[in-house]
């Protein structure tokens, strides 16, 4: 077992887009990372029985983390993005956790893995913990803390109205004030 108290830093940073697409046949959702603004497969394409249409492109980035002390690297290519809970559902586990943690000045963010035909691909708990450690190492923790949780805690994504920390509509003259609901 490693004795290193890892000090994480971002590495292999790549800016790109997360593409949200929906099948109009089965209404399932899919997401993936693309380095290109225009997905290679196009806005609409067929994959078996699924007829996919692009719903949204968001500018984002992906990265890995590397320990500055021992050099250990953790890949985070499976991290789709981080979502800020807006408290849209009182009985959501994330909202309940957020309310509890706020009293200790701990702020919750939800780590989303990619989704394929509505199947979630969550990050392993150990990697979620590494993300928490990393973002806490970047801040003055005497003032507040960050806690990253998995999107497994969200029972029904179709009713989630949280905000992803990514950029949409950046090619418009004015940044959009409202965002589409993606699920």
């Amino acid at each position, binding site marked *: 077992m490693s004795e290193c108290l890892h000090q994480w830093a971002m590495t292999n940073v790549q800016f790109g887009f997360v593409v949200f697409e929906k099948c109009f046949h089965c209404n399932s959702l899919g997401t993936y990372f693309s380095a290109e603004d225009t997905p290679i497969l196009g806005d609409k394409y067929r994959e078996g029985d699924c007829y996919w249409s692009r719903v949204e492109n968001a500018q984002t980035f992906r990265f890995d983390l590397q320990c500055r002390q021992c050099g250990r690297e953790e890949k985070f290519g499976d991290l789709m993005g981080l979502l800020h809970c807006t408290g849209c559902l009182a009985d959501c586990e994330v909202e309940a956790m957020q309310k509890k943690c706020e009293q200790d000045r701990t*702020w919750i963010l939800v780590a989303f893995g990619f989704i394929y035909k509505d199947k979630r691909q969550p990050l392993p708990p150990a990697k979620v913990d590494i993300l928490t450690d990393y*973002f806490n190492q*970047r801040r*003055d923790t005497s003032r507040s803390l960050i806690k990253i949780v998995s999107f497994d805690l969200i029972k029904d994504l179709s009713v989630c109205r949280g*905000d992803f*920390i990514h950029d949409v509509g950046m090619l418009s003259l004015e*940044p959009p*004030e409202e965002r589409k609901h993606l699920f």
Partner: protein
Amino acid sequence: MTTKDLIDKLGLRALSTFDDRDVNGVFVSDMMSDVMAGAKSGNLWLTVQTHKSIVPAANLVDVAAIIITSGKQVPQETIDIASKYNIAVLASNLPTFELVGKLYALESFKK
């Protein structure tokens, strides 16, 4: 130099309630991904983005304050979330370029 010092020196408008803190640098970007990758704890973040998701982005990387430039109107929702997180959302009518010039001229930010 603290957030409140900067408000006085640069004539900024404070829109949210916040904890005063030391400022150690400036990060200029209108992309949240850029901020998440590159901003440092204690930085000022200058942007024209006003969507409420700038607040969790700022909080994630522990910026000292967000300055909305160019006289952009900031939605009340953004201000309310910032107040909840005790993050300063400040406003300036100056374009980003001019505000950066004034910040750069301050002794605290000269390298």
